[in-house]
């Protein structure tokens, strides 16, 4: 693959890294526009396929960037896109973190941490609601999420078992022709 494609990938994803507030979902639209309309690395339908694959893969949803890079320029493209998406924001986060460590003992820092906790709680539930909305959740998904919440409030409950059981139940419903979606 031509090196100018790798450069183009870096030039698409590195700026996205620094504006991707809240992570993947905030930059999907721009990623799609760049990959399909601006650079023509793939068709609209192919991008939708990549989105489906990234939803079914482990890890953060933003790894769809690796798929876009792979489609544009093979394995080197995947590496270039992932590095360009993750490195700039990661360096910024580490810089802020190091600054915070310098002031570890200050009472102001303790108050900042304590004051951020309720903000985090609100964001956690807002995130859960956004995920339910994005997956166009029906009754089965909402019921599963509620049951999983109750089960996982037990300190001894294993997330692997709870998540695995939910997957098996959905697969069984699907196989029986009662597909939840």
């Amino acid at each position, binding site marked *: 693959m031509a090196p100018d494609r790798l450069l183009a990938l870096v030039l698409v994803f590195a700026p996205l890294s620094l504006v991707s507030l809240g992570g993947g979902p905030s930059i999907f639209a721009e990623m799609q526009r760049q990959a399909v309309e601006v650079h023509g690395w793939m068709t609209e339908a192919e991008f939708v396929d990549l989105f489906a694959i990234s939803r079914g893969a482990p890890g953060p949803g933003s790894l769809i960037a690796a798929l876009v890079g*792979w489609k544009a320029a093979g394995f080197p493209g995947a590496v270039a896109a992932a590095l360009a998406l993750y490195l700039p924001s*990661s360096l910024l986060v580490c810089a802020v973190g190091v600054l915070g460590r310098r002031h570890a003992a200050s009472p102001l820092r*303790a108050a900042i941490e304590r004051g951020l906790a*309720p903000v985090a*709680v609100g964001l956690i539930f807002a995130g859960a609601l956004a995920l339910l909305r994005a997956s166009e959740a029906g009754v089965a998904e909402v019921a*599963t999420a509620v049951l999983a919440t109750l089960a996982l409030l037990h300190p001894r409950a294993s997330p692997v078992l709870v998540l695995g059981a939910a997957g098996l139940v959905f697969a069984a419903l699907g196989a029986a022709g009662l597909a939840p979606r």
Partner: protein
Amino acid sequence: MPDDALRSPATLPALLAVFVRMGMVSFGGGLSGWMHREIVERRRWMSEERFLAALALGQVLPGPNSVNLALQIGLHLRGGIGAAAAGIGLLGPPFLVILALALLYGRYGGAALVNTALAGVAAAGIGLTCATGVRAARRMRGVGPFGIAAAVFVAVGVLKWPMVPVVLAVIPPSVALAWRSARQERERRGA
């Protein structure tokens, strides 16, 4: 109660191993829930307050939330090399898996049953996120923090206002409130 075997020190290999595991078992979001469970509850590597502060900070800064949180956990535990281990552990294996999946998908097409099963896994993953929120909320004291949490949820979750301005507007009063209650607690202890 956390099992004693898990109360091990946060060595670099242990840190890498736990992030590799979390990266590979998280489907459809819920990574912050996994990290809370593994890092705060089971291993007690980080206090609840520090974790939640890192979570909120990671959402305000650019970059994927889960990656930002992982980097801050790694940084807190083992410094820069710890941040690198957390980031590579979380992203490396799923990066290879997603490319392998794309190759298989291109060859055989999507399997409907697998997609259905993954919808179930993702729904339960939302439950993991909610359980984290409930546990964190249980530790909050007084009406103020609950009011702030509710305001953030309604503004960002229900009304879909842009997250960053909302969070930036809410942080100063929330920190002022925390500062005041910390002072009151000190005075009560002193009296």
